[in-house]
């Protein structure tokens, strides 16, 4: 059974101002599935389309972003829905937070600065299941927060009184009040120190292991994926370059871009020279022809400049989009 099936998704930003119109092809033909009970990692550099992808699958499409093609189908078992067709009210009633919750990029600032933390819990819980018994709600929230290893005092604090790591953990606690089937975590630890990052990621892993739900973890940090994700998708310039179980991605990467991402990471205890790719990430308003990676690829061939490679399955659960790799070749 799949929890989420994204098929051939094209989502562009189209803006028009003072006579100049621009189309940024942020997500350009992406297909993948999410299964229950897994941590799925999405990796890529800035402006590779990963944030846009999240916006679309969480139903947060707002002008100037628009989905032009494709489908985003959820199957929550008791409830099935197409995210591109759903109405705002239904989204709010049946999906948001109860089934899909969200840990945002820069989560440090997701808490209302002029209200106590408990009030944010109250707002969210009251929105989705009316609070009738205030004491019961308080009791439940305290238990929830304690179970996640946070002290109860945080509930009575204002956000500016908490440290960055604590705020991030409060954000995770908020995202899990209803035991959602899918938690989308967008760069949840980017601004945090390594020790705090480790603690926060442990918390996410623990929650997932206990409630067997699905976590979609987006981060540019490959080392985090290596330690947290079950499967990883590598995005480049709005398309999927490669997708495979974590072990395969790190031990046998097939796409030259993936190989570069992994091999260029410095590691303590190893001093061999690491190199950068030539060139810069492409401008998605005017992407390169053929394979979008070809201007930077060390193995570029003529075919790459004109024909965009399809995303093909090379073996069980391992897909890659590169002309060097042929179907079933491994």
């Amino acid at each position, binding site marked *: 059974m799949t929890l989420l099936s994204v098929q051939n998704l094209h989502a562009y*930003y189209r*803006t028009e*101002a*003072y*006579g*100049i119109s*621009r189309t*940024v092809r942020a997500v350009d033909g992406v297909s993948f599935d999410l299964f229950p009970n897994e941590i799925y990692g999405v990796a890529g550099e800035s402006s590779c389309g990963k944030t846009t992808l999240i916006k679309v699958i969480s139903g947060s499409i707002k002008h*100037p972003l628009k989905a032009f093609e494709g489908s985003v189908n959820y199957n929550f078992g008791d409830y099935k829905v197409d995210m591109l067709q759903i109405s705002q009210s239904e989204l709010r009633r049946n999906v948001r937070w109860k089934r899909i919750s969200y840990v945002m990029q820069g989560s440090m600032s997701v808490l209302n600065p002029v209200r106590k933390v408990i009030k944010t819990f109250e707002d969210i819980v009251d929105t989705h299941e009316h609070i009738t018994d205030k004491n019961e709600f308080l009791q439940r929230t305290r238990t929830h927060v304690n179970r996640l290893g946070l002290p109860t005092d945080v509930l009575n604090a204002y956000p500016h009184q908490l440290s960055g790591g604590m705020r991030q953990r409060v954000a995770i606690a908020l995202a899990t009040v209803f035991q959602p089937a899918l938690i989308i975590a967008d760069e949840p630890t980017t601004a945090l120190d390594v020790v705090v990052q480790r603690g926060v990621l442990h918390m996410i892993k623990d929650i997932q292991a206990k409630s067997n739900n699905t976590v979609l973890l987006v981060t540019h940090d490959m080392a985090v994926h290596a330690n947290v994700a079950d499967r990883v998708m590598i995005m480049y310039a709005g398309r999927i370059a490669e997708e495979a179980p974590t072990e395969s991605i790190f031990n046998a990467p097939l796409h030259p871009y993936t190989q570069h991402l992994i091999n260029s990471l410095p590691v303590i205890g190893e001093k061999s020279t690491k190199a950068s790719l030539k060139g810069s990430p492409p401008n998605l308003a005017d992407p390169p022809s053929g394979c979008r990676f070809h201007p930077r690829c060390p193995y570029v061939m003529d075919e790459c400049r004109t024909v965009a490679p399809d995303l093909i399955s090379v073996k069980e659960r391992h897909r890659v989009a590169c002309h060097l790799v042929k179907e079933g070749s491994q």
Partner: protein
Amino acid sequence: MLKVLRDLLRYDGRFRLAIILLGGVVAMVLLSYDSPYDPGKSFVVPWDLPPSREHLFGTTSRGQDLFWWLTFAVRNSLYLGIVTAIISRVISVLVGLTAGYRGGWIDRVLMAISDTFVVLPLLPILILLSFLLRDSMNLLNLAIILGLFGWSFDARLIRSQVLSLRERSFTRTAIYSGTSGFWITINEHLPFVLPIVFATTLNNILWSIGMEVTLSVLGLSDLTTPTLGTALFWANQHGALVAGVWWWITAPAVVTAILFLGLYLLFTSINEFIDPRTRLRLIGG
């Protein structure tokens, strides 16, 4: 520059309206140089005539053609506004840039002074001042006084902008490129401050013309100079409304409103255009 104007004309309704309104005002200013009547003389035309083809805005109880008289009024009021704006811009830019870049006690002293000017109720003070200077209160002196009082809020704006610019890395890059404080202010900070200066200039012109109207209505300016304010003063003096000469009040009020609306619309549309954030949002760059 021309392209900017064309873009604004084509895509911004407010800008188009502003150009039409201000075009009318400018036309009046130009016409004043070819006026058939001397605004200083009274009883040159029959008095209390309602608006007609011959006397576009009617005539006053003092026997003046209101339209031609107002052409001078608009010219003088604009002159006042521009002189005031120039004086107060110079002060606010100097104070704002200095306080922001130098910081420390200089900043604290300058800001304490400008805060005081922001909060003080200006009108009573201006009344006191104009009352005492009534005899020497010509247009230029009024402009200077208003300029001396009208800089504080904008100095504050500029200073807070510079304060944040000072913390930006490029200021430190410039320092370590060996650039002196003066050139850092000119090259690195002034370009960010200019949009504020420009926007506040229009705002300040509005403010000073409004202040002139207020003081004139109270009889505290040079009443022999035709301005939008003195027009209303003389109308009040002759009890224009009670006497049924409604056009004497209405015409200057409408011209003032048009001038204000025009400048204000110009201010908002240009302000939005030069604000890099809105621009980025619109062009998606």
